[in-house]
């Protein structure tokens, strides 16, 4: 048991070494490891995640605001997340690879589909749970529909919208790890092509992906608190999506 524990510690020490220092690839031919390479893998990872999340938000937030404002399509907006959750991300990506193709653009589209439902559901729910009295008084003050959306419903729904973005972001960052299957090199490359990077490279990638996901969660959690209107900060319980 002690020996096993010692070996595990050694594995982690080796993996951390991989993050900071370059070495020959076990498969030969190239050099792997070091902060430079980690960054080279992380940059496309961030680009892919950011692009998918950005597109998903650009579609889901306006759609959710509109549906919520009109009070329509609730069935679609609410069930979007339930259906989205039931489709495994690996199956989604495999489906895109088999039917549409590989590469950055196709994979971005697949991840957009993955990121859409939580943002849509949360935006819709966020708008619907705005106090009807607040909307009525805005209308009584002479605000038009678009003004009500922009100045009343959107600000009051922001915490929930950010909750949705947070769920999607962490999910997308996690799923971008299997992007090398579809021909896009990300931090998942050392995990999927272990022969090139070695066991320590694979463990190093797992460590970096885990840290990246936690950092994303913390950053968006902070942003979520920052956009929460002061009046809503009292006694609010987060909805699960």
């Amino acid at each position, binding site marked *: 048991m002690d020996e096993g524990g010692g070996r595990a510690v050694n594995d982690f020490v080796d993996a951390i070494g991989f993050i900071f220092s370059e070495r020959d690839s076990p498969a030969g031919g190239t050099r792997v490891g070091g902060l430079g390479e980690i960054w080279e893998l992380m940059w496309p990872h961030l680009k892919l995640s950011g692009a998918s999340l950005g597109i998903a938000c650009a579609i889901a937030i306006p759609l959710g605001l509109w549906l919520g404002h009109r009070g329509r399509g609730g069935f679609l907006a609410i069930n979007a997340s*339930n259906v989205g959750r*039931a489709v495994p991300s690996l199956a989604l990506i495999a489906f895109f690879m088999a*039917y549409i193709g590989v590469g950055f653009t196709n994979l971005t589209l697949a991840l957009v589909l993955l990121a859409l439902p939580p943002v849509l559901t949360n935006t819709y729910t966020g708008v619907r749970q705005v106090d009807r009295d607040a909307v009525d008084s805005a209308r009584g003050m002479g605000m038009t529909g678009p003004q009500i959306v922009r100045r009343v419903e959107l600000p009051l729904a922001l915490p929930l919208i950010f909750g949705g973005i947070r769920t999607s972001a962490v999910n997308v960052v996690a799923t971008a790890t299997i992007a090398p299957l579809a021909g896009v090199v990300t931090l998942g490359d050392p995990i999927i092509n272990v022969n090139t990077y070695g066991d320590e490279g694979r463990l190093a990638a797992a460590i970096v*992906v885990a840290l990246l996901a936690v950092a994303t969660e913390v950053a968006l959690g902070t942003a979520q608190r920052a956009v929460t209107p002061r009046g809503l900060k009292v006694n609010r319980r987060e909805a699960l999506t």
Partner: protein
Amino acid sequence: MSTLLAQVEIRDRTEASCVSDNGFCPDWIVDNLDRYVNPFFQHVLLTVVALAIGFAIAFTLAVIAYRRRWLIGPVTQVTGVLYTVPSIAAFFLLLPITGRGFLTATIALVAYSLLIIFRNVLTGLDNVPGETKDAGRGMGLTPRQLLWRVELPLALPEILAGLRIAATTTVGLATLAFFAGAGGLGERIFDQITFKSNVVVAGGLAVLLAAVLDGLILLFQRAVTPWTRAVGAR
């Protein structure tokens, strides 16, 4: 001309040409369904075992934290980190400690489900109306009796809603369990990831499993909480 004749000739053997053209081939699917049986049951086993263990741990933590409120913060933070770490990373982080296989995959899946179940059990208990609890206390129930006979039954809808979310998510994450050497439907998807028929069957089975588990928990909920139906019917 000769290719045309060849095509006519093999029209009866559409399955082979369909497969070589990478089409969607119902015949191939029917002939090869048995390849999916073992991965499917591995998937079911992984999901059910992980859910059962995850539920037992998270439920216990939530019931304890319900009385000892100071535990809520730390438990939420720890399970929150476990929830955030991508399961594919968790598999490889566990590899040096627990090795390849079922155990590693199960630990990662359990870790992921804890936050979902913990939060929902706690929310359910917190939402039990104060008057109901007072009435129970007035009838002379001890705190333990109050918990099991009043608070937990009334919290069931939220508790089971959490279990449903955990179930569908776990089915999805278990498709990655093959990275930890635990097989499952993900292994079938991965083996022929660009073959349309295979992707549809293996992916479809995973979606089906998620839907069936979700439906079963919902049916169970309907059966054990008849009073929620009465409100809806009014």
